[in-house]
């Protein structure tokens, strides 16, 4: 599972995603193999939570995936 976090200003951090199982911070860098795996995972239905702990699904998830490089 993965989880988004917020920046100090309250906006969603779109530079990193947390991999919950080991609290790893994965940067949105296409050369990072963990990031490559993250994209694969959420495309395959692995759970993604927003910063408030809500599971992102449906159009929101599709939109989010579309923003990923």
């Amino acid at each position, binding site marked *: 599972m993965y989880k988004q976090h917020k*920046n100090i200003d309250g906006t969603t951090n779109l530079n*990193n995603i947390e991999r919950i199982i*080991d*609290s790893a*911070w994965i*940067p949105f*860098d296409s*050369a990072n193999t*963990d990031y490559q795996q993250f994209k694969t995972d959420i495309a395959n239905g692995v759970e993604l939570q927003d910063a408030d702990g809500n599971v992102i699904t449906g159009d929101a998830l599709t939109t989010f995936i579309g923003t990923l490089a």
Partner: protein
Amino acid sequence: MAGVPYTFATASTTIPLSQLDSNFQTPITIGSTNMNLGQVVTTISGLTLTNVTISSGNVTVNSVSGNATIVGGTINNTSLYNVSIINVATTFPNNFLANSGITLGTTTANLGSTISTLGNLTLQNVTINSVSSTFPNNFLSNSSTTLGNTTLTLGGTTANLGNITIANVTIQSGNVTGAIPTTNIGNTAIIFGGTVSALGNLALNNVTINSVSTPIMPAQGGTGLNTLPSNNVLIGNGTGSLVTVAPGNNGNVLTSNGTSWVSVTPGATTGNVTYGNTTVSLGGTSPSIGNLTLYNANVATYTSPTSNYQSTLGFKNRIINGAMVIDQRNSGASVSTASGNNIYTVDRWATFYSQTSKYTIQQNAGSVTPPAGFSNYLGFTSSSSYSSISSDYFWFQQQIEGFNTADLAWGTANAKTVTISFWVYSSISGTWSGSLVNSAQNYSYPFSYTVLSANTWQQVSVTIAGPTAGIWIGATNGIGISVRFNLGCGSTYLGTAGSWSSNYYIGATGSNSLVGTNGATFYITGVQLEVGTNATNFEYRDYGRELILCQRYYQSFSNQIYAWQSNAGSTFRNLSTSFPVNMRASPTVILIGGIGGLTVSTTTINGFYANVNIGNTTSDAYITNYTSSAEL
């Protein structure tokens, strides 16, 4: 004899018949038969006649009891019945036996006749000394004989004879037709009855050549000379016979006069001189000098190596941590494969598996003595006896970054040959394997190698011609080459060793499996991948340099990092750090220790930035450790 006036014994003249007994009563005995004169006697017994000639009439010997013996002589016009012929002086003429018959086999023949056919006759212990001509096939039909392991029907046609040894056979020209089996000498096919003027690829052992018709020329590996002058130097002469240069005067050196080599007095300022493997033109310009060691040399002008220069310094070995020295993640502890499907072991080396808990990995597992010159190795120990199915995979690898392989020009016509070498120690001898794979995993080269003796360190090298096809990452931070070692992959991932394939292979067909034997071990160190056709000495880099190389892909930082307060009175704490080495890509960061709740907001190849709302204005925020990973 009373009344007989004459005595026969004393008679001196003829006794007249009148004086004899007129009644012929006086008997006489011939043989055993008594007879009286004047009587007719038809049978005389017990009489032997000597030198008797019966000149006319017929003689009949009839109903003779006992044996009748006729010795010698001639009997004409005589019928003999129930006669035993004890001996004949010569053979009976055919016409003496005419009108008599004899049966041989099923054939009845008349004596004195000519027989050309005998039927159903069995002859035993027969010696045929000669026949007027060859036996016709139909005389021998329905019989068979065995040659080698082939049964032949006499009179039939047999195309092949199997398993037959023919010795001392002379096949005359013209008598052998059709496809004649050949035999190979070296790689030359020899046809019986043919003429062979050359034999190729033939190894001769312990051969003594007593003479050759002409000296063997250089093109055939010879000198073209009958003798080599004592102490002379041999000089090449193209395809012609070698030429020689005599030593000349005491102290002379061999030098060039621009055309050929001559023995001259040293100190010449012209001509060519050879140093190492390079000829230097005295007073001229030498394009290069190779394989030359200079001592106390002053270099007036240095020109950097040309593009075909192959470095043997600095980064000859494209493998990082090939000596398995750096182990930032585990510090020498054993690594489990009980979960996940890929695990990093010592730095830069990862293992992948389709089944968990089939083996463990540890730096210096088993604590055997590494090969000379090495202090560490990477050890795999099998945890079970598992038979891989076709889709299973068990391997370990190092992926070399594209920046470090781009010069190999793989996937182009200029692809360079590489040699991979390593030291291996396994409890299982025999054939092991690995592969080189491109980043897309659709082009690979399975290779195999042999562990000659179990539990013995052995250096292995495999030379691989660079691929001119396939998609290979150039000078980028992506995967240039994956170097993989097979630990028991299934058939899906195994291909033919020794050639490039557009399939994805991890190892070679028929190679050993570590996971197949419980407790089996596989240790490796000194892994080197270098340009060229030969394995050179392992490039043992200093520890600091090796660590820096590793830290481009993974860092484990163990020191407290404190956060600062961004604004006076703020409850937010900001924490940032720079990596000691720029990483290959923005790394995955794990914060360890200190306070919780930190959010990593920005990560680059140079460092990361994190912050936390600590909820008060006075407490410190810090972490005690972090790891950052940018592995390929």
